């Protein structure tokens, strides 16, 4: 019996969501009266998970997994479930984790839910709260079968430290040829830039910015706040910004702590995509823009005046408050 956490890493270092997943797994393990075990792949310091209440780490060293492979990861997790007798598997809701978890769920023919926003409201039966209808609602979903596979929404649960020591155990998985039926041939990743998925703060621009040449101030504001940049659907459709920045119902979902929308009117599809963000700030010239009804704070004003001034004031604030 155990709760198994799949902790993601990159170049040997845990991602932030690894600690969120570990925290969630530890708390669920306590509710179930069992231990939290983590799977870590090619990680240099697996013992760090001990700070989040993980009692045992199944450490996997596998050259073929230096580059993420969803099918092989699912295969590995299936074997880890068998070895640990896991009642529940906890993953993040990152693109990679969702990719692997859906395959794992098919292999185990078990229940899988992602975008889970809190600890289960009941563990027998296992019922979790998750976002549904693209953030226009929540569903309380019962997971049938064992193990229950739970994808935790980014930023929803947070990291909860709990000092302890994690025992490190090396874990060797068997892979079949079909586990590596997909080969990665090129990776195009922006280095040193916060991604929308990981960001605490997201700064987003809409058609109100009038053209791609005006994105400098959006990027500067994002830099001051250590934020990711995003955009509305019309902006990506017009080709002003890449599709990868499009947030909304048919684009990327945003679940940041702070979301700043500049020159975005707030169509229902856009609001659905960003609703999970905790605090929303809207800067728009039109006081009737629907986004003001969904925002926490608003500035009715011209973005071309407000944003540069906000950047200066935030720089002062950051200088004073570190």
């Amino acid at each position: 019996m155990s709760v198994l956490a799949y902790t993601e890493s990159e170049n040997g270092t845990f991602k932030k969501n690894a600690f969120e997943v570990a925290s969630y797994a530890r708390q669920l393990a306590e509710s179930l009266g069992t231990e939290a075990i983590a799977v870590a792949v090619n990680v240099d310091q697996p013992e760090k998970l001990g700070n989040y209440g993980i009692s045992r780490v199944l450490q996997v060293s596998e050259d073929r997994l230096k580059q993420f492979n969803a099918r092989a990861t699912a295969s590995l997790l299936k074997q880890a479930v068998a070895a640990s007798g896991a009642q529940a598997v906890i993953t993040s809701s990152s693109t990679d984790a969702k990719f692997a978890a859906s395959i794992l769920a098919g292999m185990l023919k078990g229940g899988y839910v992602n975008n889970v926003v809190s600890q289960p409201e009941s563990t027998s039966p296992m019922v979790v709260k998750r976002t549904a209808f693209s953030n226009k609602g929540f569903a309380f979903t019962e997971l049938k079968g064992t193990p229950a596979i739970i994808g935790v929404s980014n930023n929803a649960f947070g990291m909860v430290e709990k000092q302890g020591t994690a025992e490190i155990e090396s874990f060797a998985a068997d892979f079949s040829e079909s586990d590596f039926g997909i080969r990665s041939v090129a990776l195009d990743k922006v280095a040193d830039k916060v991604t929308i998925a990981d960001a605490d703060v997201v700064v987003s621009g809409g058609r109100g910015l009038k053209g791609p040449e005006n994105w400098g101030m959006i990027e500067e504001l994002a830099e001051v706040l250590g934020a990711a940049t995003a955009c509305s659907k019309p902006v990506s459709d017009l080709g002003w910004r890449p599709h990868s920045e499009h947030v909304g119902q048919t684009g990327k979902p945003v679940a940041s702590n702070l979301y700043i929308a500049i020159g975005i009117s707030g169509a229902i599809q856009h609001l659905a995509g960003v609703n999970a963000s905790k605090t929303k700030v809207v800067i728009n010239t039109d006081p009737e823009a629907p986004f003001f009804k969904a925002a926490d704070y608003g500035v009715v004003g011209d973005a071309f005046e407000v944003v540069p001034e906000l950047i200066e004031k935030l720089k002062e604030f950051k200088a004073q408050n570190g």
Partner: protein
Amino acid sequence: MKILVCISNVPDTTSKINFTADQTAFDPTGVQFVINPNDEFGLTRAMWFKEKQGAAVHVATVGSVAVEPTIRKALAIGADEGIRIDAEPVDGLFVARQLAEVVKNGGYDLIIAGRESIDYNGGMVPGMMAAMLDMNFVNTCISLEVEGNKATAIREIDGGKETLETTLPLIIGGQKGLVEESDLKIPNMRGIMMARQKKLTVVPSLEAAEGTLDTRFEKPAPKGPVKLVEPTNLDELIELLNKEAKAI
């Protein structure tokens, strides 16, 4: 090449979402249903394979007779045949099992589904099918080329993209990028007329277990009124974000 596009019938993206009075189900009253946008990008890409590479394109969905207009729309866009698995799509595991059976019986080389439906957001059907059928699978796919037995796909990752090579048979979890928004086809009158003559096969569902059950629903808590800050007083905004929201 024989392609199966798996489509889901979902509320239009502009829909307001309501639940039944007892909060146990989605209330479809007054809601317009459409092809799930993630699936529609895949369907449009399949049309490209049909036009350029002579592929045969079938569409399949799990649902009652009420979903047939959505299948007809896909046929009007240009799919050759429709398949409806006659069952309520209770959950992802159930749906994946039904579609996997269609794939097995139909000898498809390429199966394109959406990365998730915009209603229940399960995001599991293509991955589960891949596991059940032991097929290669690329999720969040934003580009797909097929030459003979070989496929090159690009998938979106957090913060970038990854190019992948694989072989058919292949399952795709598609999304925007697979084709551009402007490439999406609106059925014309001729397409709509032709769709009426196309084959739509209704197949019985299999007994299959469910992995999940949505027991009840809830709407997000109503938002309090927005706090407006004068554009001349941005210090107040910073103060609010720092002290009240603790967001910076």
